């Protein structure tokens, strides 16, 4: 019931907003739908807390420790982003960057996007997972090109083609899994793509097939995660779309993609009993971290900067999942949570900052603290949080990941140390002059919607100091589920 509400609300929202998206109150409607979704997610969470994992609708949907917090997180960030986008898009409209029809498209697609992500997270069916992932891409492509500028079109096109091709590989991988499962679970075709069933028999699945499948899945979903060198769509899409979309892309979509990768990894590793998937993930993770940190060094566009930071963090998470084991998995899950909150908070702040300065170019954004202290502090604290400074939660997960790496994969730590240092220098060196210093820009009358920024940062801060026991319990269960070499 809660699940239906959870998945139904955004779909309904997409339809309703398709009809009324250009209405004066469409933004409020958007918030309302998001809030309802969030409420449903909370109800679902309560149910899971009370009764444990849930398997519903002919086993097609599964809520377990691994995805329950991601569902809530997605609904929550969906809500806060809706809150943020209300004033943001209004200002964009006032500036004449988007007209009424596009606002309609924006609101409708926003809800649809939420729906696809929630389906992807909750579904038990690997095929449905793929469908939802592809649908998520499609619903955001049009959002990326919302401004119809040459650059946004280019970004949208790259996003579409690269992710489309990538996700096609994932489909082939899914098919291979089906192929392997069919031999074990029978040709009935109904259960052979259900993750719970697969997980139960993963030891019997043919290793040769699964290893091939994993390559296709990793390349496929990895493209969506933004793992280097498959990441090239990511900075463009983040930089050229509207900022609320950058926030959800970075904060949510990447999470969903990595969730998909990990779900598959569980199966493959169970079948292979070798470290190959782990090693691949660690390799991708490290390459992403290093390349992203080097790219960070050269950025001129503030949204691009944080897009690369997302790649870096996805690299860290992938590396941690690759290492496996209870601590690293735990840390990776925590990192997913805090990265999503922090990065979306940063994008909120960045959105306001760019609007206030009238540009996305780092060199032209100066003296935010003077221009708007709250935006300035939001950006500063958010950046510090994402850079892994305590007491923010990102530090907690990086702490666990690094210490684990030191013990399990000591060869990787110099690389990580170097990359983190470079990333720190790059990001902080660019954020500091934006926040501090003087500016000639005059204050704009628009009051920024900073509740989402500080709400996110407050939660991240809390998670750095105190992880609620049931959340920790989910992390632990999920970490056990994910296992490792």
């Amino acid at each position: 019931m809660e699940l239906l509400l959870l998945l139904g609300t955004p779909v309904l929202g997409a339809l309703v907003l398709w009809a009324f998206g250009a209405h004066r109150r469409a933004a409020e409607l958007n918030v309302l739908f998001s809030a309802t979704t969030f409420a449903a997610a909370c109800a679902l969470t309560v149910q899971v807390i009370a009764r444990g994992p849930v398997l519903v609708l002919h086993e097609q949907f599964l809520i377990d420790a691994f995805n329950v917090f991601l569902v809530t997180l997605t609904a929550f960030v969906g809500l806060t982003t809706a809150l943020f986008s209300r004033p943001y898009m209004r200002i964009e409209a006032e500036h004449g960057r988007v007209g009424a029809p596009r606002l309609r498209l924006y609101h409708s697609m926003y809800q649809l996007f939420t729906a696809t992500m929630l389906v992807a997270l909750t579904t038990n069916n690997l095929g449905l997972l793929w469908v939802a992932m592809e649908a998520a891409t499609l619903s955001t492509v049009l959002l990326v090109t919302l401004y119809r500028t040459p650059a946004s079109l280019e970004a949208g096109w790259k996003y579409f083609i690269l992710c489309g091709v990538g996700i096609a590989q994932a489909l082939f991988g899914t098919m291979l899994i089906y192929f392997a499962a069919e031999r074990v679970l029978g040709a009935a075709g109904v259960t052979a793509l259900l993750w719970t069933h697969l997980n139960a028999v993963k030891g019997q699945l043919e290793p040769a097939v699964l290893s091939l499948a994993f390559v296709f899945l990793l390349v496929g979903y990895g493209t969506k995660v933004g793992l280097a060198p498959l990441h090239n769509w990511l900075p463009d899409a983040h930089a050229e779309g509207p900022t609320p979309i950058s926030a959800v892309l970075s904060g949510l979509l990447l999470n969903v993609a990595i969730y998909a990768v990990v779900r598959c990894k569980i199966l493959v590793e169970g079948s292979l009993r070798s470290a190959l998937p782990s090693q691949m993930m660690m390799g991708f993770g490290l390459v992403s971290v290093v390349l992203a940190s080097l790219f960070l060094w050269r950025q001129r566009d503030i949204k691009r900067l944080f897009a690369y930071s997302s790649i870096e963090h996805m690299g860290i998470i992938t590396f941690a999942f690759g290492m496996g084991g209870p601590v690293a998995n735990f840390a990776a899950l925590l990192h997913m949570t805090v990265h999503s909150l922090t990065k979306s908070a940063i994008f909120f702040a960045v959105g306001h900052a760019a609007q206030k300065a009238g540009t996305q170019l780092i060199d032209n954004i100066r003296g935010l603290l003077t221009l708007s202290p709250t935006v300035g502090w939001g950006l500063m604290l958010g950046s510090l949080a994402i850079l892994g400074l305590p007491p923010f939660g990102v530090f907690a997960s990086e702490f666990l990941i690094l210490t684990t790496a030191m013990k399990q994969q000591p060869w990787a730590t110099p690389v990580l140390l170097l990359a983190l240092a470079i990333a720190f220098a790059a990001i902080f060196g660019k954020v500091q002059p934006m926040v501090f210093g003087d500016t000639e820009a005059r204050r704009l009358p628009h009051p920024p919607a900073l509740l989402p920024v500080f709400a996110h940062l407050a939660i991240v801060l809390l998670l750095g100091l105190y992880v609620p026991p049931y959340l920790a319990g989910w992390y632990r269960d999920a970490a056990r589920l994910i296992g490792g070499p």
Partner: protein
Amino acid sequence: MNPLPLDLQLLNACASLLLLLSFSMLAQRRVVNLVNLLALQGALLCFATVLVALRTGQAHLYLSAALTLALKVIGLPLLLHRLIRRLGVYWDAEPVINPSGTMLIGLLIVVFSFGLAQPLAALASTATRSTLGIAIAVILLAFLAMITRRKAMSQVVAFLSMENGLFFGAMSATYGMPMVVELGVALDVLVAMLVLGVFFFQIREQFDSLDLHHLESLKEVE
């Protein structure tokens, strides 16, 4: 050694034709011809699906074949043709980079795919298993075609050809995916095409052309 049953012979012939079509798409310069080749590929796929359906008697394969027919043989090519006319790129042709080199790489890819499919085919219980290698080759060749193309339209055609390869692979390995998934995938492809249509107009509106070299401004090197 007995000769293969007729339907399997036909199926193998289909598969070989698919591979051939992939190669010709790799070499084809005219966009319109590319679309036609794609339609032909779709038709072959549809035909193969029907063959398999006949052989196995699985009902959902008929549905799948119908979907393929509707979508890939009729729907998409029609849509693409309309787009080509509306966009006025009917006579568009593009240089193919070093055709012989591309072909050679394509050949290597085919060898590689066959090698890849070897262990899989040994495991498959389907009668169509031997065509799995061709499916992989079609996918990878389409990938190669995407890499070598300079026009948005031809890139999209290559992309759709890749989807065809995927479907063919699914069919040869497992007689198709579960219906839910197949429907979902088909929906996605349809929506993707609609989105692409929108895209093409937007791009042309912006750049007066569908040439991809306009879409190379977002980059890291100066």
